[in-house]
């Protein structure tokens, strides 16, 4: 074994061992917060990872909590048949909290040593996550395993994906030839997981490239790597097709209901899923390639972590909390617009306002998720603004004004008959302008005639009302 090969292998494995620390921590500290003494956390983590990676190949591209719970409960109940649903939930939540680094608020950071080319031992550190939370297209929370987590879970010591895939193909062929159908099914399922891993690896690689695009050489390094992955994925097609045909022909030789036949059908399903995963991977590759090409051609580099960002706790929150009320009274209104998103102002809508004023009651406001503020909320019945008697009296008066009249004339006539503070006058003041916005069932039209209203106490443009619909 060459020195360089040996060094590469031990360095890679040392890092992989260090990356497993969160799993070991979970087992070592299992009695500290939640009593998990009866359970082997390595096994539960393994079940959880299995469930999540399997769901990552599905339509939501991640595992909903219910799927994690379902898979974990199978094992928890075997260890403790009396375990309640609440206990399973507590265990699942505890593992997820830990492996997702406080549900996304933090990262894991491990230090490890490597042997450098010079032969000296150097200390390095690696920041990473194992589980992440994402939103599905339907805005539901799903869990995904990072490329590091998949790598660790699928026995990442000395990991080399392409070689493992080739080995897996050989194992599958071997089991099929020997008639070991159950084992063949398991090998096929491993194929599917490798496909998920490859996609996660590509995604992680793209994110890494996005963050340091200005440091990587697109033509020299990125392009060949993309081409290599593409070639590898395309080569899977014929292999998977051959495996499916092989499984199919062997399954047909077995009688219906035979265990071996069921295993082979499951194996075929797993290979088909893997094939689907590869199709998705090709699409991602295409997108990734196009994206990088765009960046390259436009010389546009994404901003990474800005050193200008203050530490959220010591550089932002604590200084803010130390300000006095007098200072905060000035600071808060200046900072406020920065924290909340732009709001779309509501444009004035006169016809809607008129409709609202003429409506008997307000529509209940159901869109807001905000709870009513008890201090502002008074359970009172709003008085009806205009009674049917008021409306009828005003309508009767307007009918006496003839086929054409001005808004001022209508207001003056109403004030003279019912008084300047009468509800009839208020009703006419909002009813007449409503005809300005012609609606299908209106039998009157109001048009501006120029100049203001000439009745004291009212402001706005003069309108002339005519009977009949618009020409």
């Amino acid at each position: 074994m060459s020195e360089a090969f040996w060094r590469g292998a031990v360095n890679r494995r040392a890092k992989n061992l260090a990356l497993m620390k969160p799993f070991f921590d979970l087992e070592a500290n299992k009695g500290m917060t939640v009593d998990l003494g009866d359970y082997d956390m390595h096994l539960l983590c393994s079940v959880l990872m299995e469930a999540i990676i399997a769901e990552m190949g599905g339509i939501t591209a991640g595992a909903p909590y219910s799927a994690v719970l379902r898979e974990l409960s199978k094992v928890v109940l075997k260890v403790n048949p009396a375990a309640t649903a609440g206990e399973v939930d507590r265990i699942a939540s505890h593992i997820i909290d830990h492996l997702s680094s406080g549900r996304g608020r933090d990262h894991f950071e491990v230090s490890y040593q490597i042997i450098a080319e010079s032969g000296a031992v150097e200390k390095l550190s690696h920041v990473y996550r194992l589980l992440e939370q994402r939103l599905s297209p339907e805005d539901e929370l799903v869990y995904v395993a990072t490329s590091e987590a998949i790598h660790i879970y699928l026995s990442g010591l000395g990991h080399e994906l392409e070689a493992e895939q080739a080995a897996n193909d050989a194992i599958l062929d071997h089991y099929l030839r020997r008639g070991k159908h159950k084992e063949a099914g398991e090998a096929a399922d491993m194929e599917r997981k490798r496909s998920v891993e490859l996609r996660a690896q590509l995604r992680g690689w793209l994110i890494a490239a996005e963050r340091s695009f200005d440091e990587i050489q697109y033509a020299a390094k990125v392009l060949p790597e993309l081409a290599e992955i593409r070639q590898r994925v395309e080569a899977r097609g014929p292999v998977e097709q051959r495996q499916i045909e092989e499984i199919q022909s062997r399954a047909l030789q077995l009688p219906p209901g035979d265990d071996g036949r069921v295993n082979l059908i499951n194996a075929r399903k797993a290979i088909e899923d893997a094939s689907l995963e590869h199709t998705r991977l090709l699409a991602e590759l295409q997108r990734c390639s196009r994206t990088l090409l765009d960046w390259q051609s436009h010389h546009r580099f994404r901003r990474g972590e800005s050193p200008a960002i203050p530490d959220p706790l010591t550089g932002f929150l604590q200084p803010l909390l130390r300000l006095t009320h007098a200072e905060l009274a000035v600071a808060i209104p200046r900072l406020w617009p920065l924290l909340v998103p732009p709001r779309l102002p509501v444009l004035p809508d006169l016809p809607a306002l008129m409709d609202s004023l003429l409506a008997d009651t307000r529509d209940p406001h159901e869109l807001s998720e905000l709870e009513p503020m008890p201090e502002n909320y008074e359970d009172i019945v709003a008085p009806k603004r205009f009674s049917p008697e008021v409306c009828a009296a005003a309508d009767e008066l307007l009918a006496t004004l003839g086929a054409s009249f001005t808004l001022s004339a209508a207001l003056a006539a109403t004030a003279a008959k019912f008084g300047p503070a009468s509800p009839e006058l208020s009703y006419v003041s909002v009813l007449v302008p409503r005809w300005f916005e012609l609606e299908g069932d209106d039998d009157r039209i109001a048009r501006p005639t120029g100049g203001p209203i000439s009745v004291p106490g009212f402001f706005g443009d003069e309108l002339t009302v005519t009977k009949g619909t618009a020409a």
Partner: protein
Amino acid sequence: MTSEQNGGIYEAARLLRLALNARETVARSADYQQLLQRFHTDPEFRETTQQIARGLDLQIIELARDIGLAVVNIAEGPYAPTLDDFRSNMRARERIVYGLLLAMLTAYVYPSRRAVGELDDSSVVSIELRALVEWASTTSRQMKSIANVEDVANADLRAGFESIAVLEPFGDGQNTLQYRLRYVLNWLADHGLFLRREEGGRELWIARPHFRVQARFLMLSSHDRLIEFLGARADGTTTPTS
């Protein structure tokens, strides 16, 4: 102006309109996906969109490709919210408490530079209200204990952490951290920055990637202003005015 240019302006404005709504995502809208693709591949279209945004005193921030764009306010633009948008009948002291709670929430959700800096990360953070309340109470009380402050008659001279520390974490009524932080979270959910979900009987509040943009923007922009305030205090000069 050619009809092609007109079409570009129309589509750029449409993209901006979609980006202004934090609830819209590329995953759910084919229209958004198409416009975003053009934004990333057509430099002229990209420039047009950014110019329209600048004209409206807005700034476009790119999120992960599967999420879309986010928009933040520049200076005192027409879309900048005012304090009156949030419980308009509040007294001045109440505004301060709610403003500080909002700042505490951002620091709790993104407690490190790394967490607040990952704009292109499509992963989300979820929190539980109980843990947030406990953290806010402990943080403010620790600050009060370290500062060893004496009671002062003039409320204007009290520090911000005292207003938070004096609130009971849990209990009935409005005068608790739990009530007020829930109100803030509900308000942010109404603006599309948070989602509330149930998981195994627990209530989870999920911060959308758009909230990270606002938090980052707040922290970056407030830094200089905080230094200005603390500098004025150290010099013994009057508090900067707006």
